[in-house]
């Protein structure tokens, strides 16, 4: 017998909860086939399988499609159920939504040379976070950072590739004559700048 669960598009830890429920209702030897769209969910299902002493196998079916098959080995009443499965990086989906605001091409007040070194270090440090911010907003002289010849361009490209929204103020690009020089991310207007910050759980402004 086989139970199928389509957990694609579901936020962590929902795929695990649904799978656990199906396992609890399953008979020994039953296969629970779960479709998910990210490797974190695959890893969490592997942990669930280990905690429930279930057989586990998975295969990648497509770009964002993974099939995980868990075979129930012990029925609930005989299994030593470990209720707490430590879920890998669950916070990626459910954690704080952090928005970084860079309103200057320098960090802090004082010596300009130091301010420029510090902002480079700040953007680099963002790339080293386990949980990346959801967006980085650039306005006023901060707009120089997302344009050609910016010293942090490579870091911003990394962030964008990892799904971080890189948003630069259109008015600012226009004012500084940078419209043609934007090298990463999108142009946004003031409404989007406000909206992005309103929706954030945390605003990080160096």
């Amino acid at each position, binding site marked *: 017998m086989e139970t199928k669960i389509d957990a694609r598009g579901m936020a962590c830890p929902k795929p695990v909860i649904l799978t656990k429920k199906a396992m609890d209702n399953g008979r020994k030897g039953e296969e629970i086939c779960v479709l998910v769209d990210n490797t974190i969910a695959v890893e969490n299902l592997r942990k669930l399988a280990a905690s429930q002493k279930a057989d586990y196998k998975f295969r990648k079916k497509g770009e964002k499609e993974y099939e995980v098959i868990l075979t129930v080995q012990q029925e609930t009443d005989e299994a030593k159920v470990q209720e707490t499965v430590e879920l890998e990086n669950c916070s990626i989906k459910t954690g704080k939504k952090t928005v970084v605001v860079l309103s200057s091409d320098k960090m802090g007040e004082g010596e300009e040379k130091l301010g420029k*070194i510090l902002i480079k*270090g700040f953007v*680099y440090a963002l790339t*080293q976070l386990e949980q990346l911010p959801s967006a980085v907003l650039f306005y006023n002289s901060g707009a120089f950072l997302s344009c050609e010849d910016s010293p942090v361009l490579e*870091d911003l490209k990394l962030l964008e590739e990892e799904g971080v929204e890189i948003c630069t103020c259109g008015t600012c690009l226009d004012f500084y004559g940078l419209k043609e020089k934007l090298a990463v991310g999108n142009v946004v207007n003031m409404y989007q700048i406000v909206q992005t910050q309103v929706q954030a759980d945390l605003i990080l402004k160096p």
Partner: protein
Amino acid sequence: MRERVKRLVLSFSTTTQAMAAEQWFQRKNLPGRLIPLPGSISAECGLAWCTEIEQKRTVEQAAKEGAIQIQGIHEVMLYERK
């Protein structure tokens, strides 16, 4: 996408030493960049030169030539763009 890679990280005793090192290494066309001192090396605030592991000898030699005082040489796993 980003990946974790092992990098050579040079620490310095002062910020100005780190800035001088950056200037000198760039003048020598050495690959690398200035980064904030990784927490795994020290909890202190500072700047460090980050480069490829294979650059160890070259960078040590260049530092000697430019009278750059290196405080420590470390191997650290860091996220980088693939």
